[in-house]
Every structure is written in C-alpha cells, then in structure tokens.
C-alpha cells in the first residue's frame, strides 16, 4: 500500500494501459503486435496496481477462480478456432474470403484494413484473454504467497 498520490495516479493510468493493450491485441494482423504482446502490456498494468495497492487489496477484485475460468475459456476459444477448419485440415484458415475478417488486402504495400486476416484476429483475441488471465494469476499468486497466505483450492 503506497502513498495516496501513487494510488491515484495508478487509478488513472490503468485505463490508458488497458486501452493501449487492447489496441495492440486488436491490430495484431496489420501492425506489429498481437495477443501475447498486448496481453503482456495489460498485465504490466496489473503489476502496477499490485505495487500501488497491496496484494490483499487487489485480491478482493481479482479472484483466482475468475482468472482460471477466463484462462480456460481463452484456451478453449483458441483450440475451437483451430478445430473449425478440421473439415479441410486442422488450423485451416477458412474465414478468408468471408465477410467477417475475410477481406483480402491489395498485394504489396497498402494502408492496412482491420477486417482482414481470417481467424487470425479472433485467435489474437483468444490468446490475449488467456495471457492476461494467466500471467496476472501467476503474479497475484506469487505476491500473495510471499505475503504469507496461500492460494485457495
């Protein structure tokens, strides 16, 4: 539990970190970045909250149970997206050419289009959910354990 100034600044700053992380996740198919990177950005915000407030404070809002549910859900979305194409082959990118995320960008240098990439943006989103939940669960668990209390069943 740091000083009031730090806590207030962290409260304001977490919003921008969240927006930036979501931007990195959402534009993974046209700009550098993707699910892992954006998720790591968001988890850095979680770590900032962990430093500003104590781990016990943060535990009230971030439950282990919710985090593990989120993580399993993200992983399941990922593997289901991989299974969708199994009519052709596992991991077949079958959304290319369809209206959802299916636009084909002009070949060569172009100013990018958010509705491209087939299943890639959805996989980015699933991986982003998974990474956010997983890494914040790890950080929270380590902080709680080193502050004396153990993770519940």
């Amino acid at each position: 539990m740091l000083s009031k100034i730090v806590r207030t600044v962290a409260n304001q700053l977490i919003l921008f970190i969240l927006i930036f992380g979501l931007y990195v996740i959402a534009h993974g198919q046209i700009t550098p970045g993707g699910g892992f990177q954006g998720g790591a950005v968001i988890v850095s915000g979680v770590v900032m909250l962990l430093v500003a407030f104590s781990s016990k404070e943060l535990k009230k809002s971030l439950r282990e149970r919710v985090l593990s549910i989120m993580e399993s859900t993200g992983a399941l979305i990922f593997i289901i997206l991989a299974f969708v194409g199994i009519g052709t082959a596992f991991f077949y990118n079958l959304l290319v050419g369809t209206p959802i995320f299916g636009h084909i960008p002009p070949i060569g240098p172009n100013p990018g289009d958010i509705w491209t990439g087939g299943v890639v943006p959805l996989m980015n989103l699933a991986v982003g959910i998974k990474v956010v939940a997983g890494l914040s669960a790890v950080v929270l668990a380590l902080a709680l354990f080193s502050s004396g209390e153990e993770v519940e069943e």
Partner: protein
Amino acid sequence: MASLIAQSPILIIAIPLAAAFLIPLIGMVSQKARNALVVVSLVFVAFLVFALARDISINGIHIYTLGATSPDLTIPTGFMVPVRIILEVDGMSVFFSIIWSIVSLAAAIYSLSHIASETGQTRFYTLLMLMVMGGFGLMYTGDLFNLFVFLEIASISGAALIAYRTKFADTQEGGFKYIVVSAIASLMVLFAIGLLYAQYNSLNIAYLAQVIQYTTLDKIALALFLIAFAMKTGMVPLHLWFPDAYSVAPASITGMLVITSHACMYAAFRICFTLYGGVINAPVVGWIIIAFGLLTMFVGVTMAVYQKDVMRFMSYHAISQLGYMWIGVGVGLAVLGNPQLLATFGRDAMSGGIFHILNHAMYKPLLFFTGGALFHYTGTRDLTKMGGLAHKMKWTTILYMIGTLSISGIPPLNGFSSKILIYESVYQFHPILTITGIIVSILTLASFTKAFHSAFMGAELPEYKRGKEVPRSMIIGMLILAAGIIFVTLFPSLVVDWAIHPAADALIDQSAYINAVTGAIP
C-alpha cells in the same frame, strides 16, 4: 471411420489438449465428472492409436499437413520446400505411442485413489492430460521446432507434477532439478535447431534429411542433439538428476516419466537415423552410443544394489535398463552403412533394443506402482522400515513378483525374450557387450531379491499390523500393465512381427520417411 483415421494423428494430440482445457471448468462443478472425463478421453485416444497403428501396418506412413487445403498437400503447389508443420507417423512413432497410451491410461486409473487424500486434484489431472498430449506430440511431429515445443510441454508439466506433494521438501528439490535440467537441455536443442536452420532454411525433418551435408556445423548440432536428448533420457554420466526426480514424484507420475524418457530416446533415434541417417559417420556415433550404454548399464545397477529407498532403487534400475536399449540400437547404428552386417545381426540387435523398450515400458511402471503402493501403505519409502508386508498386501506382492521376474530376465517372462535377442545379436558385434549384459542381469535379480525380502518377507511387523490392501483402482492400474506383460510373455513372436520389426525397419529405411513428404505431390 475412414475420415476418422485420416484425421487421427491430430485428434490424438488435440483431444487430450481439449480435455486439459476443459478439466478446470468441469472440476469446479463435480469431481466425478472430471475423473470420468480423464478416463474416457484416454480410452478414446488409446482406441484411436490402435486404429492408426492398424492403418499404418496396411497403408504405410501417415502424413498430416496442418492448415493446408488438403491434409496430404505437404508441399504447396508450384513450390519445392515444405512450408507448413507436418505430422508424420511411421512405424516407430506409432509403436511408441501405443506404449504411451497404455501406460498413461494405467497411470490415470492408478492416480484416482493414489492421490485421493491430497488437495489440488483438478490441476493435477490438468497437468497429467497436458503431459500425455506433450508425449504424443513429441512422437508424432515431423517438424524440429515443433518437437522442441512438445519437449518443453512434457518437461514443464512433468516438473510441476514431480513437485506435487508440496508438504515435503525433497519433492520440491526433485522438481527443481528436473526443470533446470530440462530447460538447459531444451535450450541446447533449440540452439542446434538454429544451427540447422541457418544453413538450410527449413525446419522439416524429412526435407532437412534430404539436403543435409554433414558440415562442421552439422556435427556440432548432432553433438548438441545427442547429448541433450541423452541427458533427458538419463544416460550415465548424465543420469544424476534421474533418481532425485523419479523417487519423489507420485508413483503414477513416475510411471509416466519413464515413458517420457523413452520418448526422448525416440527423438534421439529419430535424429541419428532419420535426420542424419544418410550422411552420418555411423560407426563413430554408434560406438559413442554403445560406450555410454555400457557405462549406463553397469553404473546404474551397481548403484541400485546400494540403495535403501525403494523408489530410488527402482529409478537406478530404470537407468541400467535404458543401457540395454542404447546398446541394442547403437549396434544397429554402428553397422548402418554395411547392408550385409545389418542383415546378419544389426536388424536383430535393433529389434532387441526396441523390444526391450516395450517390455521395460510394461514392467518398470508396474514396479513403480507397487513402490507407490508400499508408500501408500506404510507412509515411507525407506526399505529399512519395512517388513512382512506380504501378509496384508497380497495383490501387490504378486504383481511385484511378476515385475521382478520380468525385469531380471527370468524365463518365461517377457524380459527374457527381449534380452536373448539383444545378447545373441550383440555378441557377434563384440562379445564384451553380452558379458556385461549378463552380469548386469544377475545383479538386477540379486538387488530385487534383496528388496523383496526386506519389504515383503518376514514376520508381520507390529507397526503394520492394522491397515488393509491398497484401494481397488490402484490394483486395476497395476493389473492393466501386468496383463500387458503376460500377453507379451505368451506371444513374443506375434509382438515382434507386428510391432517391433516395422519399427526397426522404419528407423533403418530413411528414404521412405523422406519420400512421404517430398515425393507426395498430389
């Protein structure tokens, strides 16, 4: 059914993975449903594995290209190099995956009551399914970097499972040693993969085997591959982590870890025979493997006689048994360039080594399970505190005797039928190998007799008067493996013809593996 067979290589990997992702959600609802999911998915995977094995024995190598417009389209149309990740299943892979499916099913059933008194069972089963998936991927993939990824999956889940009983200090130490060793070995494997990619700009094993030239960099990469996988396998003098990790894990996990070390041995064979098979300096590498194998057999068994901790004692025996397989396959590698010698005794030696892998995968997990049953009954692993347990644990005693007779090569059990193949074929390569093998076999029998006497024989000790036989699911898990032992004992020639010779030929015949990828233009 045909489409199921066509998709089975990826289903065998993806079904345990999906189950592992589902288990945390289901475990919150009900524990019975979770256990049922574990067992049912493993049974279904075992069924798929056997169906795939039958299909491969008929139609040859099975190819699955991930993400292509058709699973057989290994190379994009109008291009010469495989781009996507390819799963390639031949006789060797499917042989190992049969072992892995049986042992993982037995281990899962065994765990149901072995860890019933512990906390955190949901995550335990999640990691168990992830370990199963990692093992299957390691055996099926035809892509080097993908092999590294699955190696890491198996290692991390294994380390977390070794350290499962967190209330003891030694379990944490064993898990730490295992993960440090695995991380360093995997990083060296990755470095070697980078060395190969730098020269040939490909990661596909078949394509690399076609274009590889055995330059200096390839030699350094071969050494890194060989020693890294040998360390994961537990080859003397890199075996030191092996008993520390295996003796502290829950017994079901120890049984599975034995097969993961066999999977790393499979990766080493795949590298030596398939990737470098055309260009390798076979006698030199074969003699390196044989020398390490002799050391492994002898040091392992002599250390085992000395032990007083039952799981440690069995771990050292696992090390010494690995030496037989190294010697058998090493002799085959040493004469790989000479078709006449290969036909005379090389193929038999390799068949003996691979057959011994099958037998060892049956009786060593069985022995580890009985050791876990002793721990479950007495609460200790120390043999000096045990005695007279045969009065209470009748099933465990019988199963332990089956395992003991089998591991020490007493006829008619299956250990004998693989050892006789190894002895007679290896003798023509160099007699000292057979002599060492027989001495090691004698010492094995002696040490297991000692353990049997001190644990089961004698009058009933007062501290173990009350208490009853271990729960039923542990017995069932052990009986599955015992049934496998009896089957291999009664029909050795059947197993050799249907499973062992195809595996050995798949190792020897490098061109089939290559043509399956680079020759398959639809």
